[in-house]
């Protein structure tokens, strides 16, 4: 069943939402800046940072865009969950492979224990972020529909920022305490 289209918000509303939600990302940036020295020391971690950051944002945008689509069907929701379940491990493996390869090429060969440690960290972080974003987006989308707010205007920005903060804080904490 096609849901009715909800009008988009104004220019100034968009700036407000964009600035507010992205300012939340500054929390992640602060964490990164604080852990900057430790982060630069761990070659695989630094190499994985942009890829994992973008991957988490991708999942947030995909989840929010699908949930906000007025033509979203119930079967599509189930299919979205299957897609996330299949693609998340593949993404984790690809990120792990690339980050460890970069470290190897840079002459920083990690031991088996370190490899395990990195893979466990990437898996826990990305899977956790995806799960939190999915549940949060689902609940937020229902609330936005109830208040007649177009989720294209709000949900994508909010989930992207939330994913960014969660991931970067995870990185900062791991650089300080886990590695």
């Amino acid at each position: 069943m096609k849901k009715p289209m909800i009008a988009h918000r104004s220019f100034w509303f968009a700036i407000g939402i964009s600035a507010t939600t992205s300012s939340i990302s500054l929390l992640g940036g602060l964490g990164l800046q604080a852990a900057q020295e430790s982060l630069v020391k761990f070659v695989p971690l630094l190499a994985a940072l942009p890829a994992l950051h973008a991957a988490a944002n991708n999942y947030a945008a995909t989840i929010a865009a699908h949930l906000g689509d007025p033509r979203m069907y119930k079967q599509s929701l189930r299919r979205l969950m299957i897609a996330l379940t299949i693609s998340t491990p593949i993404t984790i493996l690809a990120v792990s492979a690339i980050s460890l390869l970069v470290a190897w090429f840079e002459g920083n060969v990690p031991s088996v224990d370190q490899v395990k440690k990195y893979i466990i960290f990437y898996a826990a972080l990305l899977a956790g972020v995806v799960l939190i974003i999915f549940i949060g987006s689902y609940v937020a989308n229902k609330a936005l529909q109830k208040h007649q707010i177009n989720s294209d205007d709000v949900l994508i920005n909010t989930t992207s920022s939330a994913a960014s903060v969660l991931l970067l804080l995870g990185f900062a904490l791991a650089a300080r305490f886990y590695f």
Partner: protein
Amino acid sequence: MVRDKQKETYTPHIPNATSELPIYTDVDTVPLPLLEQMSGHWLAMYLGQKRQHGVSIQNIIFSQLLTVLVLGAAGIYLQRDARALLLFGGALIVYPAISGVFASNAAALSATIHHELSDSGIWNRRMIMFLLRSLFQAIAVSLLASIIVGLLSAALATWFFHAGFLPTLKLAVLVAAATGAVGMPIAVGMVLIIRKLQSNPDDVVGPTANTIFSFLPLVFILIFSRLLA
């Protein structure tokens, strides 16, 4: 397979509803050939809608792998030039915020264009104007939001890390301007290409826009950090 074959070979003749097609109130009275003809039409409509609004697992995996590969390359660049980040007090504070402003606005722009195009269904002058207005509005929104975020980043960098306020603000504005000018038109172009390929832009453009806007700010931050330091 059967559906694909039907899609390729079936070209429905849709009778003009007002002059040729009588109004039926009971499905049992509709002539069988007409019912068959219209069901083919609805199947074609359904498959088209499904392709553009359904969830494609392959597309999601493909776009994620593309992201990881491109950003893996960015990771090598970042790792090699990591000391440039240390030259500039607020560089790492600015990165996620600017990347977030553009990635989310590009994803919202692509979703808006896709949903609007699906709704109106035809290309006309109004649609082209809508497309241009949406593009310029997204660039303006991103730039103004980046200035606000830049002010906040500069204040935080000064407060917590004793970095210069004006250089951090300058870095944020320069990175935002360069990122918007290069990245936003690419994001719009991609929505149109993906729709032309009968795929759902929600699966592909959002992630690809994220890739672009995670990559471009990082590159511009490293470039402008070196120039401003």
